[in-house]
């Protein structure tokens, strides 16, 4: 039975749907949770020759916005007696999640599978698929909707 679980969340925190399941799994073992949000890299916005927003400013704003919601999730888990840490990164969720899992020593990964629709469904692979395929760790996958609540 694992105790250290990496929870991969998204910018809109749809991934919060997996948190109650993580809680059910880890509260009895007083587990350790790392909340990870991987956002797309910031972009520099220019208008003609003027730079309106630099990439790092864009990333700071995104980090602050996600940080507030992340703090709420972390506080709820701490109330249940879990040790919680959180991190916001910029890059590819499928790659960064595996890096963090290895560096942090995660024993399992939890995430919500958000399936793509339309042509993207056939052209791209979901983050859940990429992680399940690459990691040797157990992966807890919940669906964004249509599944029983914890």
């Amino acid at each position, binding site marked *: *039975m694992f105790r250290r679980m990496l929870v991969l969340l998204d910018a809109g925190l749809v991934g919060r749907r997996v948190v109650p399941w993580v809680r059910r*799994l880890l509260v009895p073992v007083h587990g350790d949770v790392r909340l990870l949000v991987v956002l797309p890299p910031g972009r520099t916005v220019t208008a003609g020759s003027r730079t309106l927003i630099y990439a790092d400013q864009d990333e700071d704003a995104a980090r602050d916005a996600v940080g507030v919601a992340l703090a709420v999730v972390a506080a709820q888990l701490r109330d249940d007696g879990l040790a919680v840490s959180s991190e916001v990164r910029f890059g590819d969720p499928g790659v960064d999640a595996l890096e963090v899992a290895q560096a942090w020593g995660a024993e399992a990964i939890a995430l919500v599978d958000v399936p793509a629709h339309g042509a993207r469904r056939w052209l791209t692979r979901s983050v859940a698929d990429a992680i399940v395929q690459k990691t040797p760790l157990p*992966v*807890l996958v919940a669906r964004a909707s249509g599944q029983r609540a914890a």
Partner: protein
Amino acid sequence: MRIKMLMRCTSGTVEARESLAAASMRLASDSGGCLVVTDGGRLAGVLTPADARAAGPSTVPSLAVHEWPAFTSRLTVADAMRRDPVVVPPDATPGDAAHALRTRGHRAAVVVDGSEVVGVVTTTDLLGTLVQRLERETPPRLSRLLVAVSLVASTSRRCRSRTPLDLALGIARRHRATLTLLHVMRGLSLRVAEGLPAGVDADVQRWRLAEVRAALIRRVPPEDRSVVRVDVRAGDVVEGVLNGAATAGAELIVMGGRPGASLVRETMRRAPCPVLAA
């Protein structure tokens, strides 16, 4: 925990002489809310959706549908509200509020700071606190797990160190949960799986079924066998896992298989509960 942390804003204030139909519409737009009723600026009562419903006509009436508005339009908030409402200060404890509501049979208390109404607290809000406290005292556990196992030795990277069955048994032990050990057999007649005779092959297939059951139970350590149930199904693997999970009321499916295999992906997409790909 104090009431000021728990209370919610009221859905608004209404005068006692206002129409009940209009007040009910305001209540309907705010689920779980309630209205504070005043009479000439003084606190006169409280109106919850249940109070508003109770004052309306019976749902098995002799009234025709078109007669309902005529009946309800005559009613005022004063006809439906709870007079002499329970009043609590913001620093009261949930226990104080719950005790007052229970004693007087009310569903909502008005939170008053000095002479100013600052919010309301309903029985639903208090139940929420109770649930949180109970969950803290007794952490939520999983009670039913399902593990889909294959009798073929897996070449999965994950399975070299720990099989899905090991993982599921570890979780089941920790959570004191019951574990359904599911195996889906290809080539097994559906009728045999259901326990019905299937012609000349029936004996052979029953023998295969018994062998599989025995092989599955041998994989479980003796001390865990009392909490393990073996389920062997025939047909498509994904359908078998989904049906098995539904039958067992599983809260978590543990399954192995080749990473990224279509079986795991398809199960993840259609499962009624989360899937732990091990």
